[in-house]
């Protein structure tokens, strides 16, 4: 069959794996964006910078404090998430009574400032982050070679995405979150502290971006622009999945990663734009996105 298509199976599966890896990052990042947008009505343009900060904090923890990968995987999301909470309390909270656009402009500005600060201190050539020893090497699956670390990224991403989905859709805290997304006034009138829920949600979304950043550090070099390059694609993923839809963000993230990988095999010239072409088509056919609800 592969001979008929004129494609080596190694190339096909290799690109599919690459697509799945990219999809893992799309899914984690668009999930965070969707959660934040759902409750805060803020398009968090700083998401890419927060992902980059997650990778940088992991690098700093290792370089300056000698804290290895596993410690960074926990500490970096906590630190970057806490920084996100400070930003929400000090700045974003003042914009809730205004149009969405102001939140986008503020977070866009913040993204530029954060990236600029890192660029100023560390340059743009990129810093190496070694793959943890547990995950060096790989498996020969016969039809392809599977690097251990990349397999771990996919597994970790699936666990985090499923865990987040479960928390939002199946727990009491998640019910508060969904209810507050629909009607925050009424949820407050039941005695629930909605402002605190909003702050924690933003912190959680940011921590999710930082977690993705730590996962990315050993694969892509740690670079101040790593988030800016990715975030545009992630926004397209969110738009295709439907703003604010949790399951939509996850499925669309993985799905589009795979589609992008396949495009690299069959029509490499189109791989850079395929997601945006899909976005344009989805917007024409289903403006609320594949999983979005029309208001």
């Amino acid at each position, binding site marked *: 069959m592969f001979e008929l298509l004129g494609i080596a199976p190694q190339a096909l599966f290799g690109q599919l794996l690459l697509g799945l890896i990219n999809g893992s990052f799309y899914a984690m990042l668009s999930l965070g964006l969707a959660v934040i947008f759902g409750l805060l009505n803020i398009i968090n343009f700083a998401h890419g910078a927060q992902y980059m900060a997650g990778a940088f904090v992991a690098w700093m923890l290792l370089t300056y404090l000698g804290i290895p990968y596993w410690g960074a995987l926990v500490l970096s999301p906590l630190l970057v998430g806490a920084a996100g909470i400070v930003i929400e309390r000090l700045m974003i909270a003042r914009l809730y009574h205004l149009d969405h656009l102001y939140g986008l402009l503020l977070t866009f500005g913040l993204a530029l400032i954060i990236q600029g600060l890192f660029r100023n201190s560390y340059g743009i050539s990129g810093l190496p982050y070694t793959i943890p020893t547990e995950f060096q090497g790989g498996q020969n699956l016969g039809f392809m070679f599977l690097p251990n670390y990349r397999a771990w990224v996919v597994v970790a991403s699936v666990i985090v995405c499923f865990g987040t989905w479960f928390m939002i859709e199946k727990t*009491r805290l998640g*019910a*508060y979150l*969904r*209810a507050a*997304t*629909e*009607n925050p*006034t*009424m*949820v*407050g*009138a*039941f*005695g*629930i*502290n*909605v402002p605190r829920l909003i702050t924690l949600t933003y912190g959680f979304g940011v921590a999710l971006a930082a977690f993705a950043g730590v996962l990315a550090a050993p694969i892509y070099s740690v670079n101040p622009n790593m988030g800016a390059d990715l975030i545009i694609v992630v926004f397209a993923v969110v738009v295709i999945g439907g703003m604010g839809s949790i399951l939509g963000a996850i499925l669309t993230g993985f799905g589009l990663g795979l589609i992008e990988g396949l495009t690299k095999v069959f029509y490499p010239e189109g791989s850079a734009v395929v997601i945006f072409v899909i976005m344009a088509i989805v917007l024409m056919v289903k403006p609320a996105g594949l999983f979005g609800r029309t208001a």
Partner: protein
Amino acid sequence: MTDPAPIASVQPLLTVRDLNGWYGESHVLHGMNFDVGEGEVITLLGRNGAGKTTTLKAIMGILARRRGSVSLAGRELIGQPSRAIAKAGIALCPEERAIFSSLSVEENLMLPPRVKPGGLTVEQVFELFPNLKERLSSQGTRLSGGEQQMLAIGRILRTGAKLLLLDEPTEGLAPVIVQQIGRTIARLKQEGFTIVLVEQNLRFAASVADRHYIVQQGRVIDTIPNAELDANTEKLHAYLGV
């Protein structure tokens, strides 16, 4: 014309004094005064736009601009955020019912946290509204209008709040459901709940309430005990334009 002296047959639980409220720039409440005794059911009657719903929102703390005094058992609540007012023991069933579409019936029912001991158990809520028990896993907004109203009332009975603000609970419902809600209110009164009811349906109001406050242009302009309702029919018709 001065406001009539508020009448309360028992020690007032809720005291509303000179309550003013605004929607943006528009001044809607112009000094509401009324009392609700513990265990009483009172209604706010008046034409559309008189300020009845706004009064409930101002008491619950979800009207952004409000001034005056709302006190519950002597505790002033006017400057408090709505979540603190909820914890003080006041619960609102809004006119639009506010059932959450992304939550199941069960999640909607269990959403409001307990604020005080002594609320109804879930089983007791099912006793009042057996329909809910059969629809627990449905999406909240898939329920019929009547079932949604039962859910909106049922969920605040669990919380332990003893003062219920019910905004037009019978609006748009079939007569048999209106009767069921009437029986529920009578039962809640027996159980010691205190209820402020906004109602357009005068016959329904007369069947459940102890006293009626007539609201006009954001003020209470008259008070009619339920027992004297028949004697005041003409006056009432003039007020309400029915």
